[in-house]
């Protein structure tokens, strides 16, 4: 299994950081980006980096420290300037995306935003006063799905598959690699992805920054239920892959998909089949044995431990 960080050498993430914050981050050894999970900074807050199992603060000289008091503190200007750069100096054009709380950056990295929200009638109409930004670095695990792919397909037929796992156990990573293998990596199925939060394919301006297979098409930033139905009508896929299903609309769309003879591979939160079965309409799908394969993931022996496939 090969873990890659998307295009970090080609498009350094530091390009989106403003002023002294960029200077500090550029002092850090580039090789750490391979292990880096998240960069977090906010107004008058210490600059911190998250790795898989640890958190470190960064000093003004770009050195690691455990003492938050000696860390480099970011200012309002740095936070706002960084958001301007992430939005290509066009926050006005990204306002809809910002309302959802995150932006996808080239390379598939995600910038989560904390700000003051302006609401009308219970809905967010705009955001202002950005207070903190967290950049999650996109990684891809090539080969993660190799050991289970033959359970999902024999090369001619694909089985409806549900991946069940608690958060941060590798659901999305597994789905991404399944898409890569089905969509040209090992098989030649017409594969389609509905990527509601741009996490699976990491699309940016029409280009997928994660390898999801050359035969795979992606409906990006689209609600799952609508995306499934749109793909069904427009792209005649053999299989549709989507993440974190659970809503009634999702289940309705999946039923339509199954009726049309198209296969579904999706994921949901849960510890096991019993836990997932308690989730309303999704539970009905599971009980009706719509899914021919169920994969349970955990973090027991590290993220992405495959507990069971049956």
């Amino acid at each position, binding site marked *: 299994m090969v873990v890659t960080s998307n295009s970090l050498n080609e498009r350094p993430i530091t390009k989106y950081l*403003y002023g002294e914050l960029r200077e500090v981050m550029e002092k850090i050894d580039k090789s750490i980006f391979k292990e880096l999970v998240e960069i977090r900074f906010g107004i008058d807050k210490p600059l911190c980096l998250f790795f898989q199992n640890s958190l470190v603060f960064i000093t003004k000289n770009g050195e690691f420290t455990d003492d938050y008091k000696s860390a480099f503190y970011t200012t309002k200007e740095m936070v706002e*300037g960084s958001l*301007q750069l992430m*939005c290509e*100096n*066009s926050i*006005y*054009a990204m*306002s809809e995306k910002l309302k959802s709380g995150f932006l996808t950056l080239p390379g598939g990295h995600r910038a989560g935003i904390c700000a003051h929200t302006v609401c009308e009638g219970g809905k967010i109409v705009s955001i202002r006063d950005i207070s903190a930004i967290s950049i999650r670095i996109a990684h891809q695990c090539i080969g993660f799905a190799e050991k289970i792919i033959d359970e999902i397909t024999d090369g001619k037929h694909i089985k409806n598959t549900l991946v069940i796992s608690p958060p941060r156990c590798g659901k999305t990573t597994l789905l991404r690699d399944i898409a890569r293998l089905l969509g040209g990596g090992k098989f030649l199925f017409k594969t389609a992805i509905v990527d509601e939060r741009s996490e699976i394919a990491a699309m940016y301006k029409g280009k997928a920054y994660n390898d999801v297979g050359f035969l795979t098409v992606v409906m990006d930033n689209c609600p799952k239920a609508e995306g499934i139905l749109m793909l069904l009508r427009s792209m005649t896929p053999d299989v549709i892959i989507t993440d974190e299903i659970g809503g009634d609309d999702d289940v309705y769309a999946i039923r339509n998909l199954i009726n049309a003879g198209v296969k579904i591979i999706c994921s949901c939160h849960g510890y096991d089949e019993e836990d997932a079965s308690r989730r309303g309409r999704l539970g009905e799908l599971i009980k009706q044995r719509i899914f021919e394969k169920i994969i349970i993931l955990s973090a027991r022996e590290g993220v992405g431990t495959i507990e069971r496939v049956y």
Partner: protein
Amino acid sequence: MRGFIKLFGAGLTFVSCFMIGLYKSHKLNERRKTLMELENSLSLLETEIESSIVTLPQAFSRIKAKSVKEAFLSAAKKMQQGKRADSAFISSIPMLPGLAGEDENVLISFARGLLSIDKEGQIRNIKLTQKRISALRAEAEEEYKRMGKLYKQGGVLAGIMVAIILY
């Protein structure tokens, strides 16, 4: 020989004075044109920002008016390289030909307004700049009408006068 040198010197003086007059007149004309093209380009920018979801670098790259396109294109490139909109545009202002007086200050405050986070703020900034540039352009037109010919003719007359005195 001495007469020839004198004649040559007088000719050179005349040409120099004439060229200075021409240059001064050209500068006034250039300022007038630049301000006019800036005003038109801001209208285009307003349409781009208002009607679609293009980003500032994209909108800047679409400006094609002859004397201002280089400056906007350069600002767009700087933004794409990771510079903030205000500093990218301010550093491109010297590429605009013929600017004088208040022109630069108006453009600097336009650059600062580019940091507005909402569409309404961007449009307000563009409209305000358009208004200010329109006033500056009227002033530049007036100045060109008044002084443009004067500089040209003055250059010729001053050249003749100095040449006669020297000769």
